[in-house]
């Protein structure tokens, strides 16, 4: 099996995830799309690891999973805080950093 296919697939998944991050307004869905991108990266990492025969790629992918989990936790915490303070769940409304 050509490893290139896996890499191409990961590229597509990454692009789809990026399009989703830019297009959706619900922060939950944005986070989901972020997960897509991270998983695409994981796929690429594991594919390369298979290609070179080293297992460092797999360990890297594991750590990425940990990171993704942490990021999800914090992100969801923020969303919950938004809900608690009765702010609209819409990332376009969170524009107080405007200059």
């Amino acid at each position: 099996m050509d490893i290139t296919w896996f890499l191409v697939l990961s590229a597509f998944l990454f692009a789809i995830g990026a399009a989703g991050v830019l297009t959706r307004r619900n922060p939950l869905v944005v986070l989901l799309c972020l997960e897509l991108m991270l998983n695409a990266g994981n796929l690429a990492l594991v594919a390369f690891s298979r290609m070179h025969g080293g297992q460092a790629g797999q360990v890297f992918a594991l750590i990425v999973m940990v990171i993704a989990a942490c990021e999800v936790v914090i992100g969801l915490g923020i969303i919950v805080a938004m809900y608690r303070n009765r702010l609209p769940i819409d990332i376009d409304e969170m524009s107080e950093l405007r200059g």
Partner: protein
Amino acid sequence: MSGTSYGWLVLAFPLVGTLAIAFGWLGGLRGRTAGWIASGAIFGAFLSAIGALIQLQDQPEESRSLVDSAWTYVATGDVKVDLAILVDPLSVFMCLVVSGVSFLIHVYSVAYMGGDRGYTRFFAYLNFFVFSMLLLVLASNFVLLIVGWAFVGAASYLLISFWYRRETATRAGIKAFVINVIGDVGLVVAAFLLLDQTGALDYAGVFAQADHVFGHNDGTLVAACLLILVGAFAKSAQLPLHTWLPDAMEGPTPVSALIHAATMVTAGVYLIARTHPLFELAPAAADVGAIIGTATLVFAATVAVAVTDLKRTIAYSTISQIGYMVLGVSVFAYGAGMFHLMTHAFFKALLFMGAGSVISAMGGIQDMDRMGGFRKAMPFTFAAFTAGALALAAFPFTSGFFSKDEILAFTLERGGWYVVLAIAGYAGAALTAFYAFRMVFRVFYGNPVEEARELEQGHIAHHPPSNPATGEPEDTDVGFPAEEHHIAEREWPMRAAMGPLAVLALLAGVVQVPGVSDVIEKFLEPTFADSHFHDTAPSDSSEWVGLLLGGLISVAGIAAAYHAYVRRRGITLQLRDRFPRVHAFLVNKWYFDELFEALFVRPVATAGGFGRAVIETRFVQGFIVGGATGVVRVGSSLARAVQTGYLRAYALLLLLGVALLILYFLLASS
């Protein structure tokens, strides 16, 4: 102590005097203390100058040129400039004249300026001036000369606008300073040209190199000498840079006596004498000097005949007499020129002192039209003033007689077209004698005016304080003259100063009587030994012919004045009415001020206004400054537009950046 140590002392005394007075160390400086400190400092300088003289005369003739350097300003490449003084006959001569006459004027001012709220400031400035003048004279290189030159200009400005709340005084001070700056520029550029060509800035170096580097009438040398002349004419008030001197009479009378008669204005003459090797190599420039000197001499004499302000008459007389000195050193009659400088210092200072006394008696009025008949009320002033006038008119056997006519004799001896200059000089002498005694007869003869009669009763006239030129009233607080008026008959310092000067004015001629004595000539010889015109001195007999001619002219002029002002009073008024245009031309000083106003002042003022309105306001402020800030403002608002606060916009930019980055790597690796 060596000669140069005395030289440093000569400089040190007035400097210490200035500082002491300025800081008022001696506990408060009440009353006339500042005046006596200042006078003492100058007397110390005078004694040091005598010490230097004695030391100098001890040296053999060839080595009467002592240079001492305190430290080195600049020593880069080929240029070496030291803080060094030069003690040689010429500088010692000038030191003696400057310090001697300054001392007497200081003593005079102790009494004259009494009561003025700025008394202490006056003497601080006066000492500073003497220090600067001595620095100028003792300098051994062009740099220190220029330093002294600039200081003297500054001191002159400070003293002319001494009564600084008078607008006429401050304007006169600015005028003097601006014209002096023109001279400064000329001098600095000349020094640069000399440095460029000869590689040296000290006199010894430049003069030694000049012979090798420059040919006869070399273009650069002529240019440098002409620039030196520009500097000299600005400082010595020669045509066309003379307009500041009559206005400088706004300063107190001792200032007029010291700076604008005896010392500062002679700096130009000293400069030409000092740089004589250069002028002898470039006779074209010397000829220019001679012509301008003569022209000035005639011009000023004609104006002095018509002007009615007492101090301004004496000012024009100064301009005229310095024309004689410039003529003298330009025809290479150095001894005669310096001799006239000395005698002129004596009698001109004396005349100003006398004028100060008279003006005090008049309660501050300077207009001769309102004076008359002070002979009985002020005998001492009358005697002193007449002594000075006799010397000015070159009456036979006074000091002025020998000095002025010696210059004219030299000029005649040069022959060729110099004879024209000599004739003009004699014509000027006639006018000089006339206006000198015009002053005497108008002020002291005739019916006593009201102020004279009051003085005969025993008290000085008093008028409400006002500006003598414009008549506007003033108060007597600091910045305006005091209400007190001091006349020589009542103040012994004034008599103590005027007396010796009167004696010198009458008798100092004995040192340089042709065929009998030539003290000055012999004394100055070591400095001028390298002059090529050494042997063109006129013989004694031709000198006596010239002197005879001059004496006759002088007597004729005095007689004419007597006739016009004593015997047949009113004849001059008739002349004035017969020739109103001529009179107006003379009284308005040949319209030089108006000419300069139109040629220089008005265009520059217009250009300045234009610059402010258009260039500064519209271009610089609006376009450049506004443009720069506008660009920044627009740029920053553009940058601010990116900060929308939308997360998705930021993400978009991020992804865009990533895409571009990958693109770059793709392209780079292909």
